[in-house]
């Protein structure tokens, strides 16, 4: 089928970081849209952001206010946002109050007033806030047909005058089927705000958008001093081209563990290090990132339980210098403070850091901390979002090592309490064992998707050089993974075990 002569729909920027991508590139020019949501959901702020992003003195924005928030107060509050450009006021952005017309006259008079202003200013963007008020007032003595006719004439006028329009209104979802305005509109942007336990969760949905493919589903957003910021469910990764897997193996910085892994972690793998508290997961993760820096792989460490400075200082106690690479922008330690974070927002922060320094290695320490940092309402989405991020990042060759704390059990051998083993390629399990009246530590490589790996159960210690694997595999015990092994050759003549590491440690 020929595509010659097909109309090209220009896309306008929304001025909202992340929203253009959700919309499929931006706002379709000359479209007739509705911004709907409950009071306080951010409708007016969104409309202002769009207005200030697009208005010029040649193609100004007309902002009709009707009986909603008084215009003076709206100006008072909106100018607090950084997008509010006073220089555009009354030149590129013009506010017109239609309350009197709506109160005293009928829909024809409202249309006449809007027509007069539109023909006078030839605006590029028109906002009616709140359009719901116009409709409510009209419904008193207006038939549904008359109302539909008004909306259609309004849409026709504004489209003919080449304006991209936004009708702002406090609608509820049940109205979508019966309200004619939803039928006529080209775009329907719905903003939600819900309190979940102690947190506020904001989400938006592009319910409808004619002419282009938007990203379906609910996307979280935040309102800051800069206005709205949206976080796409696809994390901006939808268009990423997957990298052909390389044969490169990445050293973890523990030579004996590299051997157990068949030469190191395959580049682009997702590794899970699971173990109880104090088994050395974080130390092992730090060694992995430090070894990467040493080999020229920039890295990101995402921490939730301690601040970057503390993390770097703890690393130095194991002889690992993270301060220099941080200074040289080869390493970023992200401390994602435990606030009401959304999963997607957190993922975006990680992805931004990955892109910024071209990270090849990423450590998430720990998944439990990650989950705790999220607002309760977002925890249900945790696994799904994590899966999307890990899949996308490993797809472009980033190697991810996540730590997860598991409850030590002496009756089972769990890998993760999150049931997320499915999204990891490799699993390293650390655990305590009770041997000869001592609580010692063992590690085993449980799974490697990319190939063969050692089946050995090795004992290790955490020394001043980090995690150090000692000696060969433990052959004298049965039931090591239960945590309470039995000595196979106990004759009463056993030697007291030395704590000197037998394995050669990393210099």
């Amino acid at each position, binding site marked *: 089928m020929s595509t010659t002569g097909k109309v090209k729909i220009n896309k306008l920027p929304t001025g909202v970081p992340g929203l253009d991508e959700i919309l499929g590139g931006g706002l379709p020019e000359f479209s007739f849209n509705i911004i709907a949501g409950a009071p306080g959901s951010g409708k007016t702020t969104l409309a202002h952001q769009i207005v200030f992003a697009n208005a010029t003195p040649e193609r100004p924005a007309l902002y009709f206010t009707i009986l909603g928030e008084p215009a*003076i107060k709206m100006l*008072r509050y909106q100018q607090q946002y950084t997008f509010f450009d006073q220089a555009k006021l009354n030149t590129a952005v013009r506010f017109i109050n239609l*309350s009197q017309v709506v109160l005293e006259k009928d829909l024809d008079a409202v249309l006449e007033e809007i027509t007069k202003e539109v023909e006078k200013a030839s605006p590029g963007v028109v906002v009616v806030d709140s359009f719901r008020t116009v409709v409510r007032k009209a419904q008193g003595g207006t038939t549904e047909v008359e109302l539909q006719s008004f909306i259609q004439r309004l849409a026709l006028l504004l489209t003919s005058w080449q304006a991209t329009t936004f009708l702002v209104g406090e609608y509820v979802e049940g109205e979508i089927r019966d309200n004619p305005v939803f039928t006529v509109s080209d775009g329907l942007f719905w903003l939600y705000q819900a309190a979940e336990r102690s947190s506020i969760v904001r989400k938006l949905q592009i319910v409808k958008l004619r002419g282009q493919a938007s990203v379906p589903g609910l996307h979280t957003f935040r309102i800051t001093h800069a206005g709205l910021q949206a976080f796409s469910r696809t994390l901006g990764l939808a268009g990423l081209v997957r990298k052909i897997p390389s044969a490169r193996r990445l050293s973890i910085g523990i030579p004996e563990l590299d051997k157990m892994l068949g030469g190191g972690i395959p580049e682009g793998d997702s590794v899970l290090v699971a173990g109880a508290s104090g088994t050395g997961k974080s130390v092992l993760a730090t060694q992995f990132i430090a070894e990467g820096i040493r080999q020229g792989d920039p890295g990101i460490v995402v921490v939730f339980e301690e601040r970057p400075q503390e993390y770097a200082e703890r690393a130095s106690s194991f002889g690992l210098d993270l301060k220099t690479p941080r200074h040289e922008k080869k390493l970023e330690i992200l401390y994602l403070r435990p606030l009401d974070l959304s999963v997607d927002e957190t993922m975006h922060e990680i992805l931004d850091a990955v892109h910024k320094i071209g990270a090849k290695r990423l450590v998430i320490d720990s998944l439990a901390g990650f989950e705790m940092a999220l607002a309760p309402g977002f925890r249900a989405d945790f696994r799904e979002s994590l899966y999307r991020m890990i899949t996308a990042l490993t797809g472009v060759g980033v190697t991810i090592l996540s730590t997860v704390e598991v409850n030590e059990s002496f009756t089972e051998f769990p890998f993760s309490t999150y049931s997320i083993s499915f999204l990891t390629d490799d699993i390293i399990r650390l655990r305590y064992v009770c041997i000869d009246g001592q609580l010692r530590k063992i590690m085993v490589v449980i799974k490697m998707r990319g190939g063969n790996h050692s089946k050995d159960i090795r004992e290790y210690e955490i020394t001043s050089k980090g995690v150090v694997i000692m000696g060969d595999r433990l052959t004298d015990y049965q039931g090591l993974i239960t945590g309470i092994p039995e000595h196979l050759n106990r004759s009463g003549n056993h030697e007291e075990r030395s704590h000197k590491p037998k394995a050669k440690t990393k210099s």
Partner: protein
Amino acid sequence: MAQRLLDYEAVAGKNSEPTESAAFRVFAKLRRPLITLAGVAGFRSLLSRALTLARAEAPSLSAAVQVAADGSLKGLDELALQADKEQARNEGAILIAQLIGLLLTFIGEGVTLRLVQDEWPEAAFNGRVSEKERKA
């Protein structure tokens, strides 16, 4: 700023309708953009508040000065006909200063200056906002 607006309109008034006071012309000019922005009801509320504040500052301000339903000021002509022209001018300035003070309080200096500048494009107002107007 109020004084500057009055000065502008006093000069402009010499070439126009002699019965209109400078204060009347200032209000007439401010009324248009403020009604566009805030609606008649919004402007009327602001002006009523400004009048109350002005009366507290200048108790002699004539009781005849009232805010009409359409947001215009009634009784300003009587103010202009007062025997003491200096007093009349001061009372007019106080009323304008109170209205500008309210605008500064609600929408800030930047936005207020833009609104005023649009009506008096030839005037320079930067740095002309008095402390009294800021505190109004």
